[in-house]
């Protein structure tokens, strides 16, 4: 039974891949993916959002969920949705490459502020990933509707990310006595937030609108990945894995 979430993860990836022409397997994959996450949570008795295994899996589920939501009512839905689902499958694969973190949480992590901080962060990362995929699709198809969809994904992601930063600050104040810590993770998080602030401002300028802003939206996801995986794995920080 311990390996059930792994098999459910593999099955959900297979169903996403099978959703090239029909939406039904995608919904089945999403249900399976969500079920795997819920089962893992019940197994360890907490929200599974600690360590690369669980966070990558949570991110993959968030990508699939927001991809289905954001493409709802779009014309040529599957053509937009499928590349996003490939991203979700990639992150599921990456999550399976890491061992799960099953030990009980230290007391400092047992708080609503921590759980909401992490969950909101990964919702925003997922939306920034979706925005990068949409940016790539815009560069290929030059469809203005896709550019607008990228903007909406970034705006919603920015909203989640801002909330995640504020909740993280509240948690840090209760845990460490300050809302701000001078570590590379915090610094790169601010860089990420400034980068998407730059995107939202630059897109209003005629000189940056269109392709330059779309490229900023794509590049943002590279900063997301470095902030999430690069800094956590390679730099000493309050968020090290």
């Amino acid at each position, binding site marked *: 039974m311990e390996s059930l979430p792994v098999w459910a993860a593999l099955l959900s990836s297979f169903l996403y891949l099978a959703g090239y022409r029909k939406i039904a397997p995608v919904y089945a994959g999403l249900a399976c993916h969500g079920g795997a996450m819920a089962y893992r949570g019940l197994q360890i008795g907490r929200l599974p959002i600690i360590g690369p295994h669980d966070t990558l899996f949570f991110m993959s589920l968030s990508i699939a969920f927001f991809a289905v939501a954001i493409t709802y009512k779009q014309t040529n839905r599957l053509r937009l949705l499928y590349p996003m689902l490939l991203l979700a499958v990639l992150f599921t694969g990456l999550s399976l490459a890491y061992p799960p973190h099953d030990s009980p949480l230290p*007391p400092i992590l047992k708080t609503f502020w921590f759980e909401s901080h992490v969950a909101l962060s990964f919702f925003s990362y997922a939306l920034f990933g979706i925005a990068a995929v949409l940016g790539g699709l815009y560069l290929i198809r030059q469809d203005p509707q896709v550019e607008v969809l990228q903007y909406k994904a970034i705006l919603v992601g920015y909203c989640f990310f801002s909330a995640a930063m504020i909740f993280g600050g509240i948690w840090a104040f209760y845990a460490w006595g300050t809302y701000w810590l001078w570590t590379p993770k915090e610094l790169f998080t601010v860089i990420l937030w400034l980068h998407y602030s730059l995107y939202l401002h630059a897109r209003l300028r005629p000189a940056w609108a269109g392709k330059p802003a779309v490229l900023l939206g794509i590049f943002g996801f590279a900063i997301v990945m470095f902030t999430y995986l690069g800094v956590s794995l390679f730099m000493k920080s309050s968020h090290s894995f």
Partner: protein
Amino acid sequence: MKKIITAMLEFFISLRTAVWLLCGLIFFLFAGGFIMPAHEEFQALHTTPLFTWLGDNAPGVTWWLYGSLIVLSLVAANTLICSIEALIKKKSARAWLLVISPQIIHAGFLFILLAHLLSSYDSFQGMAMAREGEQLSLPGGITMAVDRIHTVMDPRGFIREWAAEVRCSGGGQPAAGGMIRPNEPLFHGGLGLYIKTVKVEPYPLALIQVSRDPGALYALIGGIFFLIGICTLLLLKIRRESPQD
């Protein structure tokens, strides 16, 4: 003189200025993101206010912070002037909420900057180990007594949970007391009292952290403003936005 003021206002009102200032700020912070993990000096930043720390360290390590501070000052001026201009120019606009919500976000951002400014001048952090029954003398004439240390062990013999009963007096405040746990500090006379960890052998001992962060309240106000503004903007923009060409 009038020409200079007009030119300066035009510079600060411009969205182009905001865009390039953000690019500059990202550059400095990006450089800092790689300098910081390579230098041990930054460890002291956890316990020393930024402006004191800057004075104690060589420019070879701190140049990106000076650069960031200069650009942030310009960003703050740009944000403030742009918001005032937007409110004056568009006060009769029909879509009033659409005009006001970015300015609420800007106000939140400025509060957060103010919070960092205050914390950079006058924050404090200290740590001490305390036995049961021991008294600690804290800044501002405050005395803290650690009455009892509680621990819960797991079946493998590791400490799973910990807490301490403490009492505070002095500092011109009525005496206060209670249980402190991880994520549940006690606040007294502007200080936060935190329990970081405990030891049970050879006798119960608690690592107590004392912090003062004068910017915390302003950061919270800024955060609330920011969230209200961004959520309002999101609700208004998500439906209105259509292809640009």
